[in-house]
């Protein structure tokens, strides 16, 4: 049974909404977790501001652990946890949980690499001026790395768009789900092309905005 693309638009719009919602909420939550994690990884490492090898090793290992699990496996493996958090293991909200767990460690590493670009000399200068570690994080590390963090968050966002496509597995909906269940499994080429084009558009727009903001921050 063929589906008419024109009649199908409301479904596509709904799916677009679901994708944006999943990606948006996941990005927000994952950043809230990933940013402090990235900061911890930078300040506790050897020679860091608050050097603490055991803390660093624990966080680094946990981050690596979650980073090494393929998303599709993570999605299924944490189903009980998801149910505990959102009360259900299917639906858009349920998809957000694995997306956050998947991308928070990734964002942590991206933030870490951005912060490591901050010249050690600048941090040393702030220390020499009597700044507290907290002041150095908020007044030196973050502002100096903000432009780079923005670019890296853009990368993470696009990664999330990709991962959210797989969220169809837990009934999360979204454009990726539509492309797979209609376009791929039911050979609805029109729908596949339409959804993929929409995904391309989302990625393009995201990257353009990210690059723009990053440049804006660099040259205030």
């Amino acid at each position: 049974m063929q589906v008419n693309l024109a009649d199908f638009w409301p479904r596509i719009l709904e799916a677009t909404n679901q994708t944006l919602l999943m990606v948006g909420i996941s990005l927000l939550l994952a950043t809230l977790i990933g940013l402090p994690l990235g900061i911890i990884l930078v300040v506790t490492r050897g020679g860091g501001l608050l050097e603490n090898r055991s803390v660093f090793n624990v966080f680094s290992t946990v981050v690596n652990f979650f980073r090494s699990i393929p998303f599709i496996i993570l999605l299924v493996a944490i189903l009980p946890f998801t149910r505990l958090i959102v009360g259900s293991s299917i639906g858009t909200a349920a998809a957000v949980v694995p997306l956050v767990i998947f991308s928070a460690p990734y964002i942590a590493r991206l933030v870490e690499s951005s912060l490591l670009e901050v010249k050690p000399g600048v941090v040393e200068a702030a220390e020499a001026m009597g700044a507290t570690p907290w002041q150095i994080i908020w007044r030196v590390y973050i502002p100096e790395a903000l432009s780079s963090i923005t670019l890296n968050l853009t990368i993470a966002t696009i990664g999330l768009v990709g991962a959210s496509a797989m969220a169809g597995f837990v009934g999360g909906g979204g454009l990726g789900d539509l492309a797979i269940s209609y376009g791929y499994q039911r050979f609805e080429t029109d729908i596949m092309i339409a959804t993929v084009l929409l995904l391309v558009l989302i990625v393009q727009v995201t990257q353009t905005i990210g690059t723009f903001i990053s440049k804006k921050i660099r040259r205030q």
Partner: protein
Amino acid sequence: MIEFDGVSKVYQAGGHELRAVDEVDLTIRKGEIFGVIGFSGAGKSTLVRLVNLLERPTSGRVVVDGEDLTRLSKPKLRNVRKRIGMIFQHFNLLESKTVRHNVAFPLAISGVPKRELQARVEEILEFVGLSDKADQYPEELSGGQKQRVGIARALATSPDILLCDEATSALDPETTKSILRLLKRVRDEYNITILMITHEMNVVREICDRVAVMENGKVIEKGTIFDLFSSPKHPTTQNFVRTVMENEIPASILEGIERRGSERNIYRITFINEHAGEPILSRVAKQFQVEVNVLFGQITELQGTPFGHLVVELQGEDKEILRAIDHIQSNVSIQEVEAHAG
């Protein structure tokens, strides 16, 4: 003002010890400009970081203004650091902040009220001559201007001490001079004690009152700038002096002397202080039956006073030459030079 008391800093690197700073004793007096010179790896960078405890000494005491910093708690140490400014070879300015905000940084982290902060920033930018650049970003500035921002930032909290870590090493000679003049003004107008480390002898010559020479973590020689230039004892010190003042008689001149053979009376006359300006040689030539032949020489300036040496050949009868030497000796130092030894 700053006292190093048997200070060592030892790093453990791959099973063996690296003594970056080795049993250093130094006293830096209030209001003086003290230079520490050494080749790279001599330990001077570590030494300067021991003053504000960016590096903790492995043993010994660092006493600043009567206070043993190694015993202070972290919050107290941070307060002491606010009285010790520091500038760096690569300036280490916040790239994301304007000149104004960079200079305001040390005041902002101390919670200085906004109005007071703004007034102080204006005042100090005026002092370093960068009022018109206040709203520019560091990357829009030249190296010399960046270092001026660095100096302004270091002075913002009105410190008693200014540490300079190779502050002019990334600058061209002209800019170096202007930065050194500014540092001198800092000392003269604010009576700030300056400890500067460098590998450039001309920097030391330009503004330092006293100097310590470092090698392999140890202070191998120290003294006033005149001591060091007029009678450097350690070979490394002699090398440093040679970088700004050629001490050896050039080979071409030596060759000429040796070729002509015979007994030659060659002397090195060293001028220090006021005598450098006196016409000693022409007086000698007039008063005694000797001819003075200047073979080689160099006069430079040490802190605004001429200093240097001349290598001369005295021709004439032995008796007259001895009298001439006697006369010279009563004014300046003179030594015989062996033609083949230089």
